[in-house]
């Protein structure tokens, strides 16, 4: 049993490592492609050359074609510099202004309001409806819902996520919101700390995301009853009974859209930004930065809903992830299909061993 889980863990680790190394390989391939493209651009540059040479012959001293090329940021093989370094032979890069407008404009403004509005909507909901309570009295019998491995993966990811989210918010919105509160020296010191935490914990978050996906994917495939759940989402918020497996449709959406999709997007773009030593161009990093910020803001907005329902929004849900067990009444009310499978012994209680008897997972009395 133990040996088996270790082997399982090793397999997961190496798959994670392989996926982790993929972006680096891609970046290198891209670099090679860029070099090849640069070589291929030379004839094109020579093609553009006669325009300038012709202009020199007809209108001496008129360098308009050349300056147009410089202004457009088009680089050719005849643009050189003695100063070593990346992109030092580019006189003017025009993409930076576009990046500035997109980042300082829609990304900051709409992104900021998205987070604020998501928070306010949840606050309003909590104020109007309050916590969704259990309808049946607690039975006192506990069912194992999350194994210790699942809880370790979840909480590591969660803590890293919160640190990344807060430091990211500092870097994107802090100047407008927090700088006036803290003042320059304190805000700068906090942002230096945040930036370094962000850059060093970022790669850990990539690992966490992979572990999350491998750990929880099994119970997150959509089933037919998930459509019923989605149709009755309003009933769920009103605290009425809706059918759900081990994870309900909302949790599944959070898994596929948040953890997997947005997690993958912020991971890949984050690695591009975090390792400038691989020689990415400014344009690559500008694009990566915008995608990173948009995905991260969306992820943060979604996470607010997940955190709310996992803590103060739904009675008993925090204890499930904190201690790993849930009351039978809670399981029956919120995850009835999973509960019936556990009781019938068809389903392992919390995804540990398929042969594990449900009775062994059930414990009398209080929480472990």
């Amino acid at each position: 049993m133990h040996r088996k889980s270790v082997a399982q863990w090793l397999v997961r680790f190496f798959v994670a490592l392989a996926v982790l190394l993929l972006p680096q390989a891609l970046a290198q391939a891209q670099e090679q492609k860029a070099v090849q493209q640069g070589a291929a651009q030379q004839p094109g540059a020579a093609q553009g050359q006669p325009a300038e040479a012709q202009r020199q012959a007809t209108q001496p001293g008129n360098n308009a074609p050349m300056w147009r090329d410089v202004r457009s940021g088009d680089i050719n093989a005849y643009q050189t510099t003695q100063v070593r370094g990346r992109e030092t032979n580019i006189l003017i890069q025009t993409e930076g202004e576009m990046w500035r407008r997109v980042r300082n404009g829609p990304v900051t403004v709409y992104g900021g309001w998205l987070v604020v509005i998501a928070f306010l909507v949840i606050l309003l909901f909590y104020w109007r409806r309050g916590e969704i309570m259990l309808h049946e009295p607690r039975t006192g019998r506990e069912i194992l819902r999350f194994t210790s491995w699942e809880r370790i993966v979840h909480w590591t990811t969660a803590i890293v996520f919160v640190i990344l989210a807060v430091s990211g918010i500092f870097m994107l919105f802090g100047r407008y919101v927090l700088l006036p509160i803290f003042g320059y020296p304190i805000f700068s010191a906090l942002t230096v700390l945040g930036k370094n935490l962000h850059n060093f914990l970022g790669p850990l978050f990539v690992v966490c995301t992979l572990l999350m996906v491998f750990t929880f994917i099994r119970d997150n495939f959509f089933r037919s009853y998930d459509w019923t759940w989605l149709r009755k989402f309003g009933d769920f918020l009103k605290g009425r009974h809706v059918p759900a497996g081990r994870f309900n449709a909302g949790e599944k959406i959070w898994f596929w859209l948040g953890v997997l999709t947005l997690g993958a997007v912020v991971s890949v773009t984050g690695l591009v930004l975090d390792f400038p030593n691989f020689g990415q161009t400014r344009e690559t990093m500008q694009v990566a930065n915008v995608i990173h910020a948009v995905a991260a803001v969306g992820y943060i907005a979604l996470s607010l809903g997940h955190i709310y329902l996992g803590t103060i929004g739904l009675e008993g849900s925090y204890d499930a992830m904190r201690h790993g067990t849930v009351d039978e009444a809670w399981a029956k009310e919120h995850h009835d299909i999973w509960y019936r499978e556990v009781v019938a012994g068809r389903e392992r209680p919390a995804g540990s061993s398929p042969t594990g008897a449900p009775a062994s997972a059930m414990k009398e009395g209080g929480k472990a």
Partner: protein
Amino acid sequence: MARMKFLCDAERCIECNGCVTACKNENEIPWGVNRRRVVTLNDGLPGEKSMSVACMHCSDAPCMAVCPVDCFYKTSEGVVLHDKDLCIGCGYCFYACPFGAPQFPQDGAFGLRGKMDKCTFCAGGPEQDHSAAEFRKYGRNRLAEGKLPACAEMCSTKALLGGDGDVIADIYRTRVTTRGKGSDVWGWGTAYGKPETQAPAQPQPGAKS
């Protein structure tokens, strides 16, 4: 108050890289950092031109706009400076700058770039003028000594001009309007067409010879 500007006359720049060396020497810039560089366009082809480029001290500076900690400031003379004590080394100014002016001492993994360094128009930084701390972080404060930037001051062909924008504009305008003669004069070809087609044309009485 003067509005400080750089101007590089591409007709005069000979790519000697003297400005780069002068800047490095005057400000004792660390290895790997180049506040100024010379870019040659159409290198080895007819119409080759060179340009010296550094921070252009923009009126609407993109670096100032994107800095997450707002560490940039503009002096009353229009010089864009930054506070290295506030800089977090994120590299955003480098993404935004059209001229590639912001420099970082490192390019390490995990985004460890060090504090940003860039051309100060030889105007130091927020520290006390001529203090040791100012020199260590930002280099010489020549403006406070009543001098102009070292790069422009030593330029052997006076291609690179640095100083009050009005004065520089006057110098450059004079150069442009008096440079060359006959059909070499700037704008002649644009106004009157190809030089070789002018001569065979019917000689007009009173036409320039």
